[in-house]
């Protein structure tokens, strides 16, 4: 999964292409394979950039995405076939991270970005007008304010659309013409912008959250979909949670001790078991609640437990500090989820060795 890179001196967060400029240059140097038109690296070198590894000349490329190699390969192959790429997954699965690095490696530019929100308008996707200019000089290309998408088309680069499903459905569909015809018409000027080779779109979306607008089938068909999974192993997830919680704790300057590995592991175990529908030993099945229970939520449960422990508790994270947070994350639907959660407590947690404290703490807040 993702790792937060160290930041440059003054900028809080540098663009990927600047931060990893050295690696990109080193890869370009040894990259002798064919590059699709307007690509800065070959597909092979792009995969190397994302997955990391040692180059022939001994240069070490750091891994950007730790996870399944096959998914990265599908994503790159998709972009090479001029089909748009849709990265799908629950929050905290490194969708944005991957899209930024793909754009940085392939176009050398990860800034052509449209952020999808409920308020995103068509202008944000197509173009707007500089009204002062428009009034004084009349409609012309100069008066036009191009969107990042339009710029990407003109320059043959990758455009990124973040949180595609948060946009209203009719705004989403603006993309259809661009994706199928590779043309953005400007009827006001009787002109159009034709996409240069190398142009493509990477969109990220979240299909399980509440408050999203489903993609129309017409739009869906124009994307190749890659589903980014949650971490494969418990250790991987525990590692991510612990690292992020430590970061957050430092930022909030909590006086509590860093969380004990055991507590983090229990939270991650509960989340994984409920999410996966089966206990970690593979012996007992459990129902899954309606909430997504992503790694990101596990992080917030642990850090809020940490805040509780710091301000109201002993300063050490205990089961009591975690219980309310865990129940809150799991029971999103007061009827269905509650049954699932109580069942889980009674049939799994109750009899698990060394889990009595967490069982009692959770029953106290939920039972």
């Amino acid at each position: 999964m993702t790792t937060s890179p160290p930041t440059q001196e003054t900028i809080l967060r540098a663009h990927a292409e600047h931060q990893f400029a050295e690696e990109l240059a080193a890869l370009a140097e040894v990259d002798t394979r064919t590059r699709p038109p307007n690509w800065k690296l070959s597909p092979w070198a792009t995969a190397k950039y994302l997955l990391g590894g040692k180059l022939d000349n001994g240069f070490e490329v750091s891994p950007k995405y730790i996870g399944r190699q096959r998914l990265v390969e599908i994503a790159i192959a998709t972009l090479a076939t001029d089909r748009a790429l849709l990265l799908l997954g629950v929050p905290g699965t490194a969708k944005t991270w991957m899209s930024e690095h793909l754009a940085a490696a392939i176009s050398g530019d990860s800034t052509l970005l449209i952020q999808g929100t409920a308020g995103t308008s068509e202008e944000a996707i197509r173009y707007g007008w500089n009204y002062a200019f428009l009034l004084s000089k009349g409609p012309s290309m100069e008066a036009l304010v191009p969107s990042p998408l339009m710029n990407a088309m003109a320059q043959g680069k990758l455009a990124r659309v973040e949180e595609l499903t948060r946009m209203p459905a009719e705004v989403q569909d603006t993309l259809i013409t661009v994706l199928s015809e590779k043309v953005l018409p400007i009827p006001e000027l009787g002109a159009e912008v034709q996409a240069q080779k190398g142009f493509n779109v990477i969109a990220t979306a979240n299909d399980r959250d509440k408050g999203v607008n489903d993609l129309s089938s017409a739009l869906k068909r124009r994307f190749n979909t890659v589903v980014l999974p949650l971490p494969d192993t418990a250790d991987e997830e525990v590692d991510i949670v612990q690292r992020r919680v430590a970061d957050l704790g430092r930022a909030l300057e909590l006086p509590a001790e860093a969380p004990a590995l055991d507590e983090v592991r229990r939270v991650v175990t509960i989340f994984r078991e409920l999410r996966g529908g089966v206990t970690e030993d593979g012996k007992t099945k459990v129902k899954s609640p309606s909430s997504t229970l992503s790694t990101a939520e596990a992080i917030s449960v642990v850090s809020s437990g940490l805040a509780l422990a710091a301000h109201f508790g002993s300063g050490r994270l205990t089961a009591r500090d975690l219980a309310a947070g865990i129940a809150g994350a799991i029971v999103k639907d007061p009827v269905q989820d509650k049954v699932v959660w109580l069942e889980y407590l009674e049939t799994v947690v109750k009899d698990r060795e060394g889990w009595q404290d967490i069982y009692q703490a959770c029953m106290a807040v939920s039972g």
Partner: protein
Amino acid sequence: MAIHIFGIRHHGPGSARSLARALDALKPDAVLVEGPPDADPVIPLLGCREMQPPVALLVYVPDTPRLAAYYPFAAFSPEWQAIDYSLASGAAVRFMDLPQAHQLAVRKLAEEEAAKQEAAPPAPGNGKPPEAPAPAELRGDPLALLAQAAGYSDGERWWEHMVEQRRDSAELFDAILEMMTALRTELGFEPENPFEAMREAHMRKTIRAAQKDGFERIAVVCGAWHAPALVEAAWPAAKADNAVLKGAPKIKVETTWVPWTHGRLSRASGYGAGIESPGWYHHLFTVEDQIVVRWMARVAHLLREEDLDASAAQVIDAVRLADALAALRDRPLPGLDELNEATQAVMCFGNPLPMRLIYEKLIVGEALGAVPDATPKVPLQRDLEAQQRSLRMKPDASQSEQQLDLRTPMHLARSHLLHRLGLLGIPWGKRKRVEGSKQGTFWEWWDLQWHPEFAVRVIEANMWGNTVFDAASAYAQDAANRAGALPELTGLLDKALLADLPDAASHVMQRVKDQAALSTDTGHLMDALPPLANILRYGNVRKTDAAMVEEIVDGLVARVCIGLPGACASLDDDAAEAMFKRLVTFHQAVTTLQNEDYTKEWRRTLTGMMDQSGLHGLVAGRATRLLMDAGAIDAGEAARRMGLALARAADPPQAAAWVEGFLRGSGLILLHDDDLWAVLDDWITGITDETFQVLLPLLRRTFSTFPPAERRQMGERVRRGKPAARATRAVPRSGRATRFEGERADKVLGVLGLLLGVGEDDED
């Protein structure tokens, strides 16, 4: 007298195609195939028109059909192609592996040895006999080692890629031979395993015999691993081979063909490991060109049949993505991995569910083979006949009756046989209920009638196993995997226990456990408890299973207690009726279990339900009654509850339902249980005349369900008034109560005391 060695991969479509081409070029006059020589007599059947692959060669020991080996063949099996070629061209064809007569004999000895060891010390654990040395796969897949060296994740993919592009087939086999020689030398492999050494010695022996018979061009088709051992230059002396083979144990075996399926090809068999993707192999073998495009077209077709979106444009895009992926991975052609990934990304929008469909229908496939009528009898048939003889049950087309006393071993065995056949869909006997004296649980009554079509079903059932026991066990396990709902599974569990199939029973229990965890239908969960409770309390299951049942019951009770209040909210009359029955049976089951934790939890749930608003009267009434009977609430509390339920604020139909729920089926009990009578009496006497008139129709509705005789007795009891013990405490009322003549009643008490055996002191 040239010998040509063709090292192949079992079920490898590339091998099959190359082999067919190579044989065409070579025109051998004898073909030797790795396979059991015991089956040589049935090879010609393969030429029959009715023979449709996939089929399997079955070699078994007639008196213990459990000992058997299967050799499945699909159209894309190189062995099948080799035999097919020989039958068509008139070349001699022989199997050359170590005969199963020896292999099975070795297995039998090993099993007997294990049984002996088990008999001597007290059986250690589950004591399964150690597997006899199974062929090739013991070492793992030798091709996987080569594939790893070439940077592939598994041997099959590597082989696919390496074989697919070959057109110069003869050189391919030379290359394989060289490769395997290198591999065997590198690993320092000398067949130290005596079993392997015997197999290769027998192969060489068969080749020598063919040479002696004067064949000119001998084609030898064997697993690639064995190829180096069969090269003439590397042969040890004939004497050495004979010495290896000397003294091998032998047993009488029979062979036949049985129909097979692509699904079963993916399982382990006489050739060792099964193959993952028979359907894909079949595609590779049958399609001449445009493998990728044709595959994608089939995928799209399947998706459309299932009403899923799949346009031609998507097929084009999927093919392009698969090609791009193959290029990125430096592969000449997209393999199944690339095709699946492209299908999922383009056609399924990243959704893995349709991929499962594609896996079942296309990648594995549903092809079912057929065998000609002339095929020899199957072992299941023999096993059944043997059992019919030993149990003295002659199959008869006319109907006859059997009473089985399960306390005698012979009758118990008969019952097991009938139950097992019933599971396999061969209803030779039908259970019937009989009124009369012989009704105990150890009596079973059956109507027996043998229908001719059962013979066909026996042949069909043979695919599940070679004995009735094995087949029924395997079938029950398969049925458990397919069954979706809990009631189906608990029913199956019951059958498996009746048929005495311990393995199947524990498998079904595992499924019940899984399903219980996932089931959202509390009703189903409640239905599952009574049979399990019976097993736990009275059943004769193995110790390990009892522990599992306990675990399941634990989970069931906990889940029902949590889910029941929710499941009882907003029931209509029909649903409430069903829930009423479930409540009663579940309560009985909990009572049977006599477990304090369960009882406590169950009472807590019922108590909660009494206060639940919006609960159907029938259910609420029964919950109150169950608690009262269990002593969790006293009679006064029950009367208070009844008053609340029948208060004028309550909806009349619901109030009636409450009374019905409280009293249903209790006419006699009402008569003889003072407490219950008191509850009703306290309540009725406590309400005003006006209210009584309003409620009368509702009460009548419940009381009209009691038989007339009971109602009459109730009336008499009312006329007699309150029982003496209570009369003193009763609120004095005008009218009837004063008419109670205590003196006359006291006269009876003396006699009654004698009858009941209590002292007269207790009378007050």
